[in-house]
């Protein structure tokens, strides 16, 4: 092995990176800014529900129920009307989320024996939030009802629910490990993809290939400096998670850092492979961006649970590196588990790193034409 040549090459790469201050700043700051920005912005809790009331015969009873909604602070009444015609335009223009429709006989029935009828219409175009709206609305009505029927002999089973590992279902705790995974894979894959395809496009790659450097060394020289850079990104992102969002670190931080390096290696190798297989910077970037951004966001379990996906899609998620890293990161941060439990995910990532690196090296063999 020609170590001096390798050293010279790594130094050259470092010079490239360090000389371009602007890009360097972007590379160091971007992941941090993104983790903080999205950590604050990404939440799925519903705090403000806009309600329309259709009450053909306003009465103490109907007004009482309405005031129950208002007193929760979560509901806001944005429109009141006599007829259901008001609902459709409100929903279409996204001015209301829920409509509460009282039966004309609601109040009289409530005092009598016949059932008093109430219709809840929700804008379910977003099924997830729609279901949440419905649950909150139902809860208010049920509480009201329980009060009315206090003393009757209903059986109640009280369920004490414990959300283990994240008792308050804090969005930040769920999204931050995923965000770190997403930002890391994107930055790493893009960085190497563009740096290599640039050398290819400018013809400097040929010079490297005819030099005494071996293809492996070229790859190592390319990957090593970015590994350092990506590690800096990991550190700042984790620091932000801990200091800004108070995400718990129940397990070993050292293990988490090691796993991050492994994961970054996979991402970097992916970038090298993309650069090797594409003809221009433009194509390399398009591929890297398309191949990493949405799949790592959507097929990784970061936002949508893997368990919800159709069975045939599961094998596809296996090739998404973030899918494995998120399990590891959540495991270490939220559950405090170690390699004893995470060995399988770690093994998969190691295999991926190895496979991708070998594939990348092969694709860079100097070719005789």
């Amino acid at each position: 092995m020609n170590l001096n040549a390798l050293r010279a090459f790594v130094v050259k790469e470092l010079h490239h990176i360090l000389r371009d201050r602007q890009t360097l700043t972007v590379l160091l700051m971007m992941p941090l800014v993104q983790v903080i920005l999205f950590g604050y912005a990404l939440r799925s809790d519903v705090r403000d529900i806009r309600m329309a009331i259709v009450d053909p015969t306003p009465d103490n009873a109907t007004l009482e129920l309405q005031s129950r909604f208002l007193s929760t602070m979560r509901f806001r009444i944005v429109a009141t009307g006599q007829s259901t015609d008001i609902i459709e335009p409100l929903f279409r223009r996204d001015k209301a989320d829920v409509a509460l429709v009282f039966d004309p006989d609601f109040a009289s029935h409530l005092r009598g024996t016949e059932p008093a009828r109430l219709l809840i219409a929700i804008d379910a175009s977003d099924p997830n939030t729609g279901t949440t709206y419905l649950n909150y609305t139902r809860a208010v009505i049920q509480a009201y009802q329980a009060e009315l029927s206090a003393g009757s002999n209903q059986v109640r089973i009280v369920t004490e629910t414990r959300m283990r590992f994240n008792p308050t279902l804090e969005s930040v705790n769920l999204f931050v490990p995923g965000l770190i995974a997403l930002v890391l894979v994107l930055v790493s894959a893009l960085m190497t993809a563009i740096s290599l395809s640039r050398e290819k496009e400018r013809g400097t790659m040929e010079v490297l290939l005819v030099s005494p450097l071996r293809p492996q060394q070229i790859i190592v020289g390319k990957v090593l400096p970015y590994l350092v850079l990506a590690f800096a990104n990991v550190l700042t992102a984790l620091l932000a998670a801990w200091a800004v969002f108070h995400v718990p670190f129940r397990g070993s931080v050292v293990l988490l850092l090691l796993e991050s390096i492994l994961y970054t290696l996979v991402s970097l190798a992916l970038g090298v492979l993309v650069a090797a297989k594409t003809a221009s910077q433009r194509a390399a970037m398009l591929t890297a961006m398309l191949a990493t951004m949405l799949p790592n966001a959507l097929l990784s379990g970061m936002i949508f649970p893997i368990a919800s996906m159709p069975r045939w899609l599961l094998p596809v998620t296996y090739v998404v590196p973030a899918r494995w890293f998120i399990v590891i990161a959540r495991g270490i941060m939220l559950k405090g588990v170690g390699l004893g439990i995470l060995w399988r995910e770690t093994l998969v990532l190691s295999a991926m790193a190895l496979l991708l690196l070998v594939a990348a090296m092969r694709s860079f063999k100097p070719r005789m034409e």
Partner: protein
Amino acid sequence: MQTLRYLLRKEFLQVFRDRMMVTQLLLMPIIQLLLLGNAATFEVKTSRMYVVDRDHSETSRGLIDRMQASRRFNVVGASPSMDVANDWMLRRKTDVILSIPADLERDIVRTRNGAIQLVLNAEDGAAAGVTQSYAAQIIGAYANELGAELMPKVSGHPIEVRARGWYNPDLDYRDYMVPGILVQLVTVVGTLMAAMNIVREKELGTLDQLSVTPLSQSTFMAAKLIPFWVIALVELTLGLLVARFVFHVPMLGSIALVFGAAAVYLIAALGIGLFISTLVDTQQQAMFVTFFIIMVYLLMSGLFTPVRSMPDWAQWMAQFNPVKHFIEIMRAVLLKGATPRDVARPIGILAVFGVVALTLAIREYGRRIG
């Protein structure tokens, strides 16, 4: 006008000459739409349940049976030990632990009140929330059933509540997500292509050559905009076909309105790309700037988490996100049958974005060439 024709021919030739890129441009987003459209759902079909039953009564077995019968839960293990259950959860072998204390049946018969414990793996918060609501429904129904058994003549509920989910009665998440993912894919492809384009000519040196010709700035920009605008619209058409015939996304509103809005939106999205391209010196820089912007667009567009759940400052920021507006329009028109008047405001905002971005791009290009 004639000059524009020649320039357009050149741009199209250059795009279509790179076979691999064209394939990628047209195929990859469609493949992704097919995969991702299926992935984007919060619906949890079956959760694995571990049962710690210390009561061993008819009541506790009844509850477990109801859980299993709902098909929402699959009992994967049972033992009287909570420690074993916890370990299972730590190893991700179970999603839910149902813990029933020793005197559930006795309590219910005596006091009509019983207590049980439900432990969920909240490592995956979205799934945990959904699973919890399923369990709560089953438990509630079971309690009513028990009540009816114990005292058959109890008067019914005083209020009868019916609920109806409009626009998506089956609560199919794909109807909601597929249009949004499509917008995102078209945006990534379009903006990135546009952002790389001018700076590429800058790097290759051909931009200098064009700059000494009598070519006007707006003709130049039009020639850069139109090809990607056409490609993105083709992409959108393919995507909408997939949405319609593969995902059966309802299309209540006017398709012409969708395309009208898309035409405006794409001017904004591509204009931003072109502006970036005039601003930077290398493709590398173009790439990182675009990447950052697209990432913000993507995650703050309401595609994954509702914009209205964001903190106020983030909601305010989202107003400056054209992707958010276009996703809103797509969802409103396709799922709710919104009319042009309903979506006039977001379309207006997009038009403003388009004009501003293009003006900036032309001005910056003008400044660069002297």
